[in-house]
C-alpha cells in the first residue's frame, strides 16, 4: 500500500478503538505512523500493532466506565441480542445475555471492592443496583413488548423466550428490591454513626 492511501486506511482502522482514546491519541498515532512509514516501516507491522491494542483499550474503557455507561452498553448489547435472535436463533442470544449479566455483576462487584468502606459506598452501591434493575426492566419491556414484526417473534423458540423473560423480569425486581434495601440500610447506619 502506498502513501496517502496507506495513511487513510490506517486512520480508518483507528475507528476500532474506543472513541475517547481515538480523540486523545488518534492524530498523534497517525502522525507517528506517517513518520515510521518514511523510515521504511511496513504498513502491516503498524496495523498489526494497532489491532493488538484494540482489545486492550476496549478492556480499559470498560473498566473505567461509569455505571450509567455500563447500562447504556447493556442496552446496546441487548439490541444486538434482538438482532441475533432474528438472524441466527435464540441460543446464541441467550448465551450473550447470560455473559452480559455476568459481566455487569462482576463490574459492579469490582467497583464496590475499590471503594472505601462506609455508609456512603453502601448507599451508592444500592442506587446503582436499583438503577441496574430499573434499566433491565426497561430493556426487557422493550424487548418483549416492542412493536417487532411477527416473523421475528416466531423466530424465537418459546422456551428460550420464556426463560430469558423470566430471568430478566424476576432479576430486575430482585435487583431493585435489594438495591433499595441497601440504600435504606446505608442511610440508617449513617444516621446512627452521626449521633
Amino acid at each position, binding site marked *: 500500500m502506498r502513501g496517502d492511501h496507506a495513511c487513510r486506511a490506517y486512520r480508518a482502522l483507528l475507528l476500532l478503538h474506543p472513541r475517547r482514546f481515538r480523540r486523545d491519541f488518534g492524530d498523534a498515532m497517525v502522525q507517528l505512523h506517517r513518520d515510521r512509514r518514511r523510515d521504511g516501516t511496513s504498513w502491516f507491522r*503498524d496495523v498489526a500493532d*494497532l*489491532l493488538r491494542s484494540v482489545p486492550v483499550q476496549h478492556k480499559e474503557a470498560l473498566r473505567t466506565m461509569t455505571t450509567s455507561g455500563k447500562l447504556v452498553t447493556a442496552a446496546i448489547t441487548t439490541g444486538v441480542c434482538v438482532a441475533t435472535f432474528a438472524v441466527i436463533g435464540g441460543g446464541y442470544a441467550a448465551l450473550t445475555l447470560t455473559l452480559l449479566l455476568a459481566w455487569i455483576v462482576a463490574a459492579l462487584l469490582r467497583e464496590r471492592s475499590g471503594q472505601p468502606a462506609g455508609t456512603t459506598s453502601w448507599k451508592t452501591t444500592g442506587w446503582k443496583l436499583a438503577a441496574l434493575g430499573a434499566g433491565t426492566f426497561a430493556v426487557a419491556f422493550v424487548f418483549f413488548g416492542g412493536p417487532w414484526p411477527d416473523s421475528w417473534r416466531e423466530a424465537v423458540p418459546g422456551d428460550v423466550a420464556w426463560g430469558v423473560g423470566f430471568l430478566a423480569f424476576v432479576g430486575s425486581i430482585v435487583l431493585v428490591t435489594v438495591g433499595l434495601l441497601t440504600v435504606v440500610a446505608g442511610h440508617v447506619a449513617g444516621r446512627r454513626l452521626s449521633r
Partner: protein
Amino acid sequence: VFHLLLALREGEQHGYALMHRVEDLTDGTVRMGPGTLYGAIKRMLADGLIEESDERPDPALDDQRRRYYRITAAGERACAAEVDRLETLLRNARLARTELGTA
C-alpha cells in the same frame, strides 16, 4: 513503561523520538508501534507519571502536530524505585550465581 520513563529522564520528547530512544536503550529488542506506545502513554498520563508539555520547539524545526511529554516528580520516583529494585535483583542473582559456582 520503565523504558519510556528512562527515555523521558533525558528531557521532553515526542512519540517518534521516544520510540527510537526506547529502541536504543534496549538494543533494539523493544520495538513499539503507535498503538502500544500511545496505550502506554495514556496509562502513564492517568497515573501522573508523565505530563504533556505545552512548550514547543521552533515551528520551523518541528511539526506542530507532534505532542511532547515530560516526566513528573512521581515518574522520577517510580523510575528510581524500579532502578533500585532491578539493582537488588541483579545483586542477588550475581550472589546466587557465585554461591552456586563455589558449591
